[in-house]
């Protein structure tokens, strides 16, 4: 990221404030429009091959007390971000939330962090910059990578060259908040294996899966952070590595895959930058539950609702997903990744993954 980028982001924020100013002067009701961030308003961009927001817009308008408060907070946040960029500092989303407590105007203070997060997303969309351009960091650090990859990271203490197998401990290489500061030097990996849970990641590392299959094991840590998705996307685009995603066999995990492959609904404005549409789903597939006779839990009501809502989610409207989701609704069961241990600790690395990856044409 360059200083230009930051300057541009700052100008765009000030422009937004100027827009409110002009609206006041014209006797108009101050307002800003942002795309509606729901699953009903995302559509497939054929050209870029990712899911982006559709035409529907929500208007944040000072017409109501709630809307007016939102805009007031937006203006205060704009001022804060502009100052931050001026000073070359950065802060986290959570810090922004707490910082608002220090603002002289109580009406401008955030009532919870969702509100401040959402506002930053609004500002990203309206200004066309990313949160990283505003120097806003997410709270959770990026996840980890383990595998035959050599890279150079720009840190505050200078450049570091790191090999993600040899130079790191059992925990792997920690992905920084802004992966765009990384330069890839050398890579012996054949593919990327993104894993949902820490337990499974540790199992794969312990079993030496990364070594044996030249796999780059990326730990997703549940719903992946932007940094994790960004680096995955870069690894795929720049090193031409196939991406595979290995999660639990339940509706929430399918969404994890969805956000890696198609982008999340909340950050569809950044899909182009974060999503890896070529990512493939390994499992646990509902079909695997049947085929491998895995231990299961019954689907809860919320699971069923989530599955049904996925059937309507445009991102999942493919033959493959419809088949899998309908199968799961039929068997009314779900399984975790670690249920594979019911066939022995090595089953996942010796049987399941090789079989699945072979089927998928990755191996």
């Amino acid at each position, binding site marked *: 990221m360059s200083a230009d980028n930051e300057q541009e982001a700052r100008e765009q924020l000030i422009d937004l404030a*100027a827009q409110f100013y002009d609206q006041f*002067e014209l006797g108009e009701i101050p307002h800003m429009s942002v795309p509606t961030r729901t699953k009903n308003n995302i559509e497939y961009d054929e050209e870029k091959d990712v899911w982006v927001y559709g035409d529907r817009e929500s208007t944040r308008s*000072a017409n109501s*007390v709630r809307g007016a408060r939102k805009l007031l907070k937006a203006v205060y946040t704009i001022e804060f971000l502009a100052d931050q960029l001026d000073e070359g500092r950065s802060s986290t989303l959570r810090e922004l939330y707490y910082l608002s407590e220090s603002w002289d105007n109580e009406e401008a203070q955030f009532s919870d962090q969702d509100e401040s997060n959402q506002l930053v997303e609004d500002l990203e969309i309206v200004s066309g910059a990313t949160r990283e351009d505003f120097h806003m960091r997410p709270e959770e650090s990026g996840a980890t990578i383990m595998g035959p990859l050599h890279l150079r990271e720009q840190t505050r203490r200078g450049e570091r060259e790191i090999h993600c197998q040899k130079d790191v401990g059992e925990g792997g290489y920690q992905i920084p908040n802004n992966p765009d500061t990384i330069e890839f030097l050398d890579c012996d990996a054949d593919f990327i294996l993104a894993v949902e849970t820490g337990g499974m990641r540790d199992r794969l590392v312990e079993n030496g899966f990364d070594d044996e299959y030249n796999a780059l094991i990326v730990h997703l840590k549940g719903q992946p952070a932007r940094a994790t998705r960004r680096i995955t996307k870069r690894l795929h685009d720049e090193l031409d590595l196939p991406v595979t995603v290995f999660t639990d066999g339940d509706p929430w995990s399918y969404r994890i895959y969805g956000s890696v492959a198609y982008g999340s609904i909340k950050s569809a404005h950044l899909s182009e930058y974060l999503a890896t549409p070529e990512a493939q789903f390994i499992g646990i597939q509902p079909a695997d539950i049947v085929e491998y006779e895995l231990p299961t839990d019954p689907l809860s009501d919320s699971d069923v609702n989530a599955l049904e809502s996925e059937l309507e989610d445009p991102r999942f409207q493919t033959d493959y997903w419809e088949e899998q989701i309908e199968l799961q609704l039929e068997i009314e069961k779900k399984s975790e990744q670690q249920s594979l241990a019911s066939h022995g600790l090595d089953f996942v690395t010796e049987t399941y993954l090789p079989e699945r990856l072979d089927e998928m044409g990755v191996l």
Partner: protein
Amino acid sequence: MTSFQSTLGEEPGIAEELAESQQAISIAEFFEKNKHMLGFDSGARGLVTAVKEAVDNALDAAEEAGILPDIYVEIQEEGDYYRLIVEDNGPGLTKESLPKVFGKLLYGSRFHAREQSRGQQGIGISAAVLYSQLTSGKPAKITSRTEGSSEAQYFELIVDTDDNEPEISVEETTTWDRPHGTRIELEMEANMRARQQLHDYIKHTAVVNPHARLELREPQAHFKFERATDQLPEETEEIRPHPHGVELGTVMKMLTATDSQTVSGFLQEEFTRVGKKTADSIIDAFRDRHYGREMRWRPPAVHEDVDLHAAVEDATANKGADATAAFAEAIAEEVDGYDRIAHHELLEVVDEAAEAVEDDHGTTFGDTVRENAVAAVWRDLVDATSEDEAADGDGDAGADEPGESRLVADLYDLADEATSTRKDDEVVRAFAERLAGKFDDATEDDVRHRLTRDDLVAYVDRAADLTEEYDDVAFGDTARENVVEAIWDVMATVPDDPPLVRELNGDRDATSDLVDGMRATDIMAPPTRCLSPISADLIEAGLEKEFDADFYASATRDAEVSGGDPFIVEAGIAYGGELESEGGADVMRFANRVPLVYQRGACATTDVVKSIGWRNYGLDQPGGSGLPKGPAVIMVHVASTNVPFTSESKDAVANVPEIEDEIELAIREAARELKSYLNKRRSMQKRRKKQNVLGKILPEMAEKVAEVTGREEPDIDDAIARIMNNVLVERQVEENGDSKAVSVVVENNSGTNESLEITDIVSAEPTDLSDGATVVEMDGEWFVKWEPEVSSDDEATLEYEVPDGASCDLDVKGVESEKLTVNEQ
């Protein structure tokens, strides 16, 4: 002394012995023992009741004489007793009637009159005298002067309870400074614990009697309630009872007393709203109940093998061929013209035909001939077999279609029409056959097929029961009712003369039929000139006078009838302002302009107020029933020629359904206004709140935006007006050499059309006024008046020019201040 044993038989019987101690009780004695029934159950209450009775009488007396009431009440402490003095400016009482009015219970002019008045039974004031003499042992002292007489009469009297007659101890003439009026002085054992009720009574009386002047002097206080209007309530007129709601016993009593000979005359003479036409309708309804209706059957259709012509000819003997043929022809043709024909209609047809043929042919058609013709035709119509045919065995009438009589086909059509289409055809046919069977059976007793509705219900029930039993199908209540209804509709009211009054008199069943008939007939609501409602306007005025509230609503219902007495219910509601907001709403009850202060819980009014779901009308009501909470006064006035009270003390209106219904409707009517007021107030409150919050946020936002962009603070008034959907009135002034061009722009951002009244007060004469505006000069100021109507999302502009240096002052009306933004430049 002999033993009881030996004398028992010789003594008079125990019953006789007991009878000796049985004796008539005078009404005065009865109430002496049952003071509580009249509202004199305690010293505290006794005083209030005595005031109430005296004041009610005084108001009635003055109003009746067309005098604006001026009433003075004084309560003096007199050792252990209280002395009550009530003076009025009424017409006064004559020497003869005065002692009875005050010294005899149940003496009065109102008891028999159907006219609204405060007093009704003639108990109240004499009961107060009775209570006074019982507790203090002193007589009532009464002074009265009639208009025009030079002296006043002075009496001291008590009620002789043994025979309920006044016992006069002093009777003399005296002088009195009032030109006319009555003064009563009572001494009684009492206390002032019920001061609150006393004040309530006086205050509430003032609310509903704005034409009266009231003064109350207590040992420590003095209240005056001045007149709010010089308009006396409209004089009431006595009316006769209304046919709806008189009871059987009353009608029987009226029958004994009437001078009328006929029922029609009786109805027209003794009841209100009954003229010739209504009387006829009532009599028809009576006939239906008393005599029943006659079944009308369809005349034979062409395809039916019934030849009425032949039947008449066969039945007519020795009248010559031509005359007979003409007679038969006339009857057959006339009958054919009917859709359906009843026996009595057939009689008429035959009579008419006979007379016509008599005229044409000179042949006499006597009663026997006519009867024979009727019998023959009727027999064919109802498909009865005559004796000859029955003997014949195979007459052609029954031969081709055995069992399928004309009645079955007729009833089948009626029943089929009346029952649901889902009923099986066979079932309906079977039912029709059975019903026809009942009619057939009846033919033997009464060939005319004359049935009361009850008879018809029995027929239909029987046929339906049999159908259910044998055909194993359901024939439900609704279906039965529908069939009864359909048949009853085609049946004809009989022309029989109603009995004369003297025949009816004493015939309980017939009278009951008459009362039922009266109730079933639609009759115009009773005239209301016998009633004196306060009127919605005066209720509001009365409430405004006595309560400082934000909102007043009232409703006056149309007159209704209960027990032959017309009544009107009125309701009023006051809300907000200085009214007590803690606790339940106040309920003020009135009957014939008299406040009811005791027995609130026993009153129909209270019951109705409690039963209403006040939450629907925007008031709090814990648990969704009971008295509503909040700063509200609910007032209900029942005006009737005879208010049904729960007891003689007249504290509570009895739970009479018709009255309760009207009370509810009246309250709901007023409450609907309250609701829309509260809704509006709430939306204005919301708007004000929104305006307050936005009025804080938006300037802050504007300030911040200016700070961030490094510009001057923007002007936000227009934006705020738009946000608030307000009506924005903005004046712009443009310098134009040595004059100024002024334009006043109205921008309606609200969702509704707005009519504004705009006045711009200018210090110099304006010129070049745009259309629609007028200028009035007053004391060197020019009032530019403009009343534009601006529809939603539209604009209107007023333009004029003034010399330089003139000042303007804008005044806008017609829009709530919450919805208005005025921007003067």
